């Protein structure tokens, strides 16, 4: 077993809250997000998600809990054989929803993130910024209770970053707890939100 990446952390993500998670590279932001996304268990200590101890959740219950969490992967994780529209609609499709029931919502969201003209384009043709916006749209499409995003504005220009930030805030206003991991100070300065700063495995919270 390797060294402990995170230790002596105590915090909570309240419902409907909005926070930035920041800190130097290697501080453990990704590990913390993986813990929150249920893709990692703590070696010791207690992490509760949706009032459940994540170390004791049975495997077959994980998909249902993950449906309540939207995640923006740092490397986007778009499927290259599906169009932008199909990638964004994927979470709804795997939930067994009929396409007619979500088509308008997906198209609206794609227009909002500036991909209205790219709905039939495959990811290999998209630019880095477009892929990032598609990944964000996929995370938002089912209005999750918790949204986790790692550097969601890392590949977009400042106007689009502001636009995406307002989208996250809109989602937060509708009831989603948002955690944005970022190094972008100018982005954090645009919102008066809670800041969680990770450094050398320790967490300082500025309300």
């Amino acid at each position: 077993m390797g060294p402990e990446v995170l230790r002596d952390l105590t915090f909570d993500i309240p419902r409907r809250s909005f926070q930035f998670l920041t800190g130097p590279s290697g501080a453990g932001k990704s590990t913390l997000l993986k813990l929150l996304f249920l893709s990692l268990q703590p070696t010791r200590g207690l992490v509760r998600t949706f009032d459940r101890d994540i170390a004791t959740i049975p495997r077959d219950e994980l998909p249902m809990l993950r449906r309540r969490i939207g995640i923006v992967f740092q490397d986007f994780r778009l499927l290259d054989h599906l169009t932008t529209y199909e990638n964004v609609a994927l979470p709804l499709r795997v939930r067994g929803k009929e396409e007619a029931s979500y088509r308008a919502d997906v198209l609206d969201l794609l227009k909002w993130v500036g991909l209205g003209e790219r709905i039939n384009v495959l990811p290999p043709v998209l630019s880095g910024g477009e892929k990032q916006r598609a990944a964000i749209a996929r995370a938002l499409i089912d209005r999750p209770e918790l949204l986790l995003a790692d550097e969601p504005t890392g590949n977009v220009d400042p106007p689009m970053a502001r636009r995406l930030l307002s989208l996250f805030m809109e989602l937060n206003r509708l009831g989603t707890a948002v955690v944005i991991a970022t190094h972008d100070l100018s982005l954090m300065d645009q919102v008066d939100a809670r800041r969680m700063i990770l450094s050398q495995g320790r967490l300082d919270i500025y309300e």
Partner: protein
Amino acid sequence: MSEAATRPQPQEGNQKRPEMRVRPTAPIVPPANVSGNALMFVIAIMAFLACLTYGAVSMVRATAASWQSQISREITIQIKPDDGLDMEAALRDARDLALTFTGTKDGTIVDRAATARLLEPWLGEGLDLDELPVPRLVIITIDEQNPPDFGAMRQALTETIPQAFLDDHRTWVNRLVTMARTTAWIGMGVLILVFSAMVLTVVFATRGALSGNRHIIEVLHFVGAEAGFVASEFQKHFLKISLKGSFAGGALAAIVFAIAGYWQNRTLATPESDQATALFGNFSVGVSGYLGIAATMIVIALLTTLTARFTVMRTIFEIDRIRSDPARTDDLPDT
């Protein structure tokens, strides 16, 4: 205010553009790729070989059974000429005596002309049987299922006609039975080997084709798809591939047998055909042969589908196992 008006509107120019159409939804698993096509070819080749082997083995078994059956259906009474022996009467007596035994069906005396024909290849035409001490034959057809008591028949014949000798072909039958059984067992062994090779090839080729799709399984798993859903998507995909491949291979094998059977029928009674028939039997595999080919196709389809299911479930299990093993976090996608 309408719902559309309250939705955030995209940035647009003054000119209205026509609404873009969404293409028909693509399957979650990519329909065709290099590994999928390679798998289809592998399945087609293995199905062809397996079906060909199955057909060949059933042909060999049928031929072996027919050898055994033909020779054990008859026994022969041989009467050697002797001074003072009325050959024709002795032949009739021998036949009548043999037919009194239970288990005999019919008796035929090989007449003089037929005997001469039998000897013609060695002694030439125009043979006068009276000049040579040529034994004469009575052929008795017996019930294979309920053969007569050969010992009692032999004794009765010897007592009545001392010059008579009963050949029940047991030595030949026993040898042929042994040979036929050995041939059938060798055939079964070859069939088992080919089927084992087919099973292993199909399983490993399916796993190989799936390994290129691990990222799809991960993404589906992380966007909330249940393991059963992911498995069923891959199952459907691999079922299609295996059905196409096994149908192509099975159909090709059936065509090969049909063509061989057609050629045999067309060239009936020619030396080539006779030689092929003597060596391999009848090329027709019959209904059971074609059913076997269909069963092989079904087995391959099931095998591929089940392998796909188990591999997907195992991949998901692996992803979840990493979750509880912090030393392996590098394998997880970056959040």
